[in-house]
């Protein structure tokens, strides 16, 4: 068997992998760099805190929204974050089912990323409320009013979809984590770590029975997670498609959104993969082959998203509906044309470089392309919201939207909300699945010695 067929270099021992990965939390290598990152992240988080206080004290008027553009940054970033939050679970679940072995080195931090991205998304629907202190009215509880939530509303669907997605992702993530926590526990020498991993590992001891039930659960969960991922973002797309606003009211939206989500998600996964591997010297586990595959997936989803763009245009032209055409014209030439063309350029131009193997296998190139995709998708969400709302049916209601300082501060704040827990997670849990990597390594060795 030749090296290429192996995604992992086979000349490394199981023990080595164990020590290397559990070593990251137990004997943290990059203290200073981490502190700097943490400082930056907490600053952003503080910004979010300030923005939120300002918001609750004074009302959503501090944002640039108005009538007709009464949804902008909040919903726009909600969709963006949720989209990013889709890669993790999708990668690990889908690839687990298809048994693609290259998943093992990526799924853990991809899933972790998902969790925090979804949290970032999840706070927006609350922040953007006019009276956030009544958010609990969206849940069915026996109120003295005798009034219930309205289950025909896409917003109501949203609440349930996001809650489900967060919970299931968490369960899936934790299930996969248990054996590794045990591994860390068994490596831990300091009492504190022993107790922490001891409890979180729930007393896992890798007994044959444990493994049997665990594998079945893990696979079945993956089986559930895949349709869930698809449903959640389809549902988010209905938030718009269910409205009659030109530029929203389209059947392409669900697939269009899901693919877009996966696209942006994979981009962020690539960013994290490249970053972590160079940070913690994980080249032996996150190999160029991994980047290569990531690059291919990114390219594929990117092209599918591009198809969505093309279809949107076709849709408008084919319908021939004057307002749809008006919206199309506004997107291409209107006041916010820069978001449309920005999205097209950032999303699809650098992407084409991924046709070359060299680019795919070079960390920093992949990183740059992924960043551009993340920006592109952000612009796309902006475009979908603002250019549809600022000029809808009645000419007399046409208006404009300009984000204020608080729009931006809230957005950047959520980046802090994402980074802080992620950085903490790096220090607490093995960022790559130990047991599965070993399994893979063992299989590869098997093949070698026939």
């Amino acid at each position: 068997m030749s090296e290429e067929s192996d995604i992992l270099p086979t000349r490394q021992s199981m023990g080595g992998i164990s020590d290397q990965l559990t070593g990251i939390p137990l004997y943290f290598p990059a203290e200073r760099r981490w502190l700097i990152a943490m400082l930056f992240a907490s600053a952003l988080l503080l910004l979010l805190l300030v923005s939120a206080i300002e918001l609750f004290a004074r009302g959503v008027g501090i944002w640039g929204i108005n009538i007709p553009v009464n949804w902008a940054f909040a919903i726009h970033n909600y969709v963006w974050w949720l989209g990013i939050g889709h890669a993790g679970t999708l990668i690990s679940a889908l690839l687990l089912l298809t048994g693609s072995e290259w998943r093992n080195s990526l799924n853990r931090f991809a899933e972790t990323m998902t969790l925090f991205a979804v949290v970032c998304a999840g706070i927006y629907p609350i922040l953007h409320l006019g009276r956030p202190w009544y958010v609990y009215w969206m849940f069915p509880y026996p109120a003295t009013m005798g009034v219930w939530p309205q289950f025909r509303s896409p917003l109501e669907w949203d609440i349930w979809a996001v809650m489900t997605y967060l919970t299931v992702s968490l369960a899936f993530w934790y299930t996969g984590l248990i054996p590794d926590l045990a591994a860390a526990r068994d490596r831990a020498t300091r009492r504190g770590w022993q107790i922490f991993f001891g409890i979180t590992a729930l007393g896992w001891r890798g007994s044959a029975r444990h493994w049997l039930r665990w594998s079945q659960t893990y696979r079945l969960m993956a089986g559930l997670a895949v349709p869930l991922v698809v449903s959640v973002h389809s549902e988010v797309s209905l938030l718009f498609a269910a409205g009659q606003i030109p530029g929203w009211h389209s059947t392409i939206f669900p697939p269009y959104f899901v693919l877009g989500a996966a696209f942006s998600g994979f981009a962020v996964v690539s960013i994290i993969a490249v970053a972590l591997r160079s940070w913690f010297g994980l080249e032996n586990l996150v190999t160029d082959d991994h980047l290569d595959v990531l690059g291919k997936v990114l390219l594929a989803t990117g092209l599918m998203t591009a198809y969505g763009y093309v279809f949107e245009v076709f849709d408008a032209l084919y319908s021939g509906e004057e307002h749809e055409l008006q919206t199309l014209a506004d997107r291409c030439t209107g006041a916010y044309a820069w978001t449309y063309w920005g999205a097209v350029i950032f999303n699809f131009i650098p992407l084409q470089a991924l046709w070359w193997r060299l680019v795919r296998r070079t960390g920093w190139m992949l990183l740059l392309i992924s960043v551009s995709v993340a920006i592109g998708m952000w612009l796309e969400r902006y475009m979908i919201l603002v250019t549809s709302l600022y000029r809808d049916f009645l000419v007399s209601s046409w208006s404009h939207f300009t984000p204020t300082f608080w729009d931006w501060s809230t957005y950047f704040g959520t980046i802090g909300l994402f980074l802080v827990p992620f950085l903490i997670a790096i220090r607490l849990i093995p960022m790559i699945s130990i047991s599965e990597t070993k399994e893979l390594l063992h299989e590869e060795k098997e093949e070698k010695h026939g």
Partner: protein
Amino acid sequence: MAEHLYGVLAEFESPERLLEATRQAMEAGYRDLDAFTPFPVEGLDRVVRLPRPTISFAGLGGAIAGAGAALLMQFYVNYDYPLNVGGRPVYAISAFAVVTFELTILFSALAMLIAMLWQNGLPRLNYPVFAAKRFHRASRDRFFLCVNAQDALFDERETRAFLSGIGALSVELVPK
């Protein structure tokens, strides 16, 4: 004699060795066996003749419960205070589909997680095998076979001898 014992723990350095040893132990007539490994070892369950796990049924149960709960909830709230919402029907099945689907998945997933932990008897922080000197390698790179003291054939000395006989790197007694 064996009351104070949990069993005998034998260490092997590869899954293959473990499988081989287990097979021999079974042939020797030991039944109450368990193995501790860093990752699921292919085929071990067949050798030890473990029953097929029943997590999937828990999952199914959860799914049905979820779907039922969701539909019931949505129908009830519209039955309790029927309001004309944009001329849509009171019982708008198509609109209820989304939440129903989400809850189906949610309940199912949680049911399976709980079932898995329950059947595995987790969480269980204190367990005899943890007391074994070399057990910390069970999650690293060693593969352990354990003959429980409850086993009919179990005899402290003979079992030890038998295990070291089939190529264990180390054999140790695990106290209760």
